[in-house]
């Protein structure tokens, strides 16, 4: 391809290794968005070319990738960034080289707390994922006691920690907080403890398969709290429902995104992805898809392809995407951080419905729930 005809953007994603599954979804979403954008004529007559490189989930490889993108491929900006460790390594290099970097997944709070002006983040930091659940707890469920289970990943640990803090602030007693290594077969030991403690709320930060196992085993043990709450996207995926079966019914979950959200293009994106690749997508994909549109928007608005101009265009972003509104501002200790909101969804009769915030709810929140009856005992 001729350099003049295309604008090169580098994308850093894990395409092999243990995070490859998500890297793959994001890559497909980027590709899909790219096709749409270029199909509509690209940017001022030029096509965008995404140079998607595999970071293998290792920071030093991520760094090789970004150095290569900058020096060899001469990209104008960089996107992607899945795991926090890689994202941070990449961000450091980008800042040093004054290369604009739009992060769409790497969630460690610290990444945008470095006062790095070339680093922008579309997704909320890990500590903000549960905001809407907290509202729901305060207004409807009003629990006295809570137990927290979370996977021992960066995301799991930090969101469990911030949820614990807000519980303490709200005056709910945290009876138990336990982390686990993802990929366990048997959660019964800890679930037996939960059953014994009999909390009002069981809060779980788990990815999809662990989530299904935990719910199935909770059902086996007949745990009976006021509510089971998922703190992460694991509980919103169709695979969760398929695997957990009856045990998924009436579970609620926080989510950053779901196709039922009233954002223009959300449902379209979901359907199109499913039709095109014959598999499910989820919020990671939506983040990537939205990021691609932000990149296109920025490249459209920028005065030139100079780093500084692109950075300026990025910081002036104010648009609606399939992932929700995107606008980079400085708040709390963070720089160039998009303020994405989070939502609560509930599995009602085998379908995932938006139940919170109230103004966006598609169905009323089902509460209280008689679990033993739901599970068919």
């Amino acid at each position, binding site marked *: 391809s001729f350099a003049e005809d295309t604008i090169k953007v580098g994308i850093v994603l894990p395409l092999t290794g243990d995070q490859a599954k998500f890297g793959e979804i994001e890559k497909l979403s980027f590709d899909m968005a790219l096709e749409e954008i270029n199909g509509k004529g690209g940017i001022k007559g030029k096509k965008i070319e995404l140079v998607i490189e595999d970071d293998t989930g290792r920071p030093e490889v991520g760094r090789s990738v970004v150095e290569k993108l900058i020096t060899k491929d001469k990209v104008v900006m960089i996107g992607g960034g899945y795991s926090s460790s890689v994202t941070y390594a990449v961000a450091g290099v980008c800042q040093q080289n004054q290369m604009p970097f739009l992060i769409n997944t790497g969630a460690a709070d610290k990444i945008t707390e470095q006062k790095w002006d070339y680093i922008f983040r579309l997704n909320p930091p890990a500590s903000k994922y549960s905001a809407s659940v907290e509202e729901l707890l305060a207004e409807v469920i009003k629990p006295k006691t809570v137990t927290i289970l979370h996977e021992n990943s960066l995301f799991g640990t930090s969101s469990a920690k911030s949820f614990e803090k807000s519980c303490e602030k709200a005056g709910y007693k945290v009876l138990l907080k336990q982390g686990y290594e993802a990929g366990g077969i048997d959660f019964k030991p*800890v679930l037996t403890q939960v059953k014994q403690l009999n909390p009002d709320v069981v809060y779980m930060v788990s990815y999809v398969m662990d989530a299904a196992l935990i719910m199935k085993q909770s059902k086996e043990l007949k745990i009976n709290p006021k509510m089971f709450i998922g703190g992460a996207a694991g509980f919103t995926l169709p695979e969760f429902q398929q695997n957990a079966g009856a045990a998924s019914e009436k579970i609620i979950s926080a989510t950053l995104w779901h196709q039922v959200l009233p954002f223009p293009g959300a449902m379209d994106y979901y359907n199109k992805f499913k039709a095109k690749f014959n598999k499910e997508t989820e919020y990671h994909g939506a983040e990537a898809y939205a990021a691609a549109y932000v990149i296109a928007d920025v490249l459209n608005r920028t005065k030139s392809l100079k780093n500084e101009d692109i950075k300026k265009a990025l910081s002036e972003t104010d648009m609606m995407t399939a992932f929700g509104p995107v606008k980079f501002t400085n708040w709390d200790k963070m720089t160039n951080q998009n303020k994405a909101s989070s939502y609560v969804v509930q599995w009602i009769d085998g379908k995932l419905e938006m139940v919170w915030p109230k103004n966006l709810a598609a169905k009323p929140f089902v509460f209280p729930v008689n679990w033993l009856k739901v599970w068919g005992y």
Partner: protein
Amino acid sequence: MTVFLQTLVAGVLIGGIYSLIGIGMTLIMGVMGIINLAHGQLMMVAMYITLVLFNVLHFDPYISLFVAMPCLFLLGVLIQKFLLNPLMKIESILPENQVLMTVGIGMVLTEIIRFIFSSDYKSVKTPYSSSAFFIGDISFSLPMCIAFGVALIFTGLLFWFLLKTDIGRSIRATAQDKDAATLMGVNTGRITVITFGLGSALVAAAGSLLLPIFYLFPDVGGPFTLKAFVITILGGLGSTVGAIVGGVVLGIAESLGATYIGMGYKEMVGFVIFVLVLVFLPGGLKRLTKI
């Protein structure tokens, strides 16, 4: 008390699955002296076979067992014949070359599967996947009980096979002195190949039985390889009965650890036991029980 009992039951049942994984390892490592770091990956392949049979032909995983086992037997045979046996002839400074070879094999298996099936999580849903029965307050998972029973059966069969049949004896003899076994009329090349095949077939059984309970992705194997080592060392190398005892002890220890130390330390319990046994009870539980 309920917490303790339920923890114990959960531990024993998961121990059944562990034992099944360990039996294959005890054959390959304990008897043949091959340290197989691709053990879990072989199980992973068996799980994918079971999955495909379920999705395409709607075979119940318990029936697929009888397909996955021969398939993995074949795979094991090929690996031993073309990758591990030739190594014996190569002189190198470190005998641990063979261990690394299995690391390479594990990587290749994982990546091939990833190429075919992508990294997505897969699982099968059977009516009994999450069925449980209660005795008093204590819940027993049905598929885990079945796995436990199968583990017992396989242990018994293997025990008998190794001790009482000529092929079994030939397997042990080959492991101890290849040349001498050859002189006694043992086709040692074929014996190692059969042994690796059998070990693979056994771990395939574990895979098929695990699938209804667990889920599946290309990297699922790694942690199970490590568990298999713990079990084999704990039970005592080459001891079939040791494998089942080792599996159950590991299951119980992990469960108790999860309940009374913390869920995050569950995996660690296994490794700590592993090191303790290696150091303070060389020979494993076999030494205590003399079986």
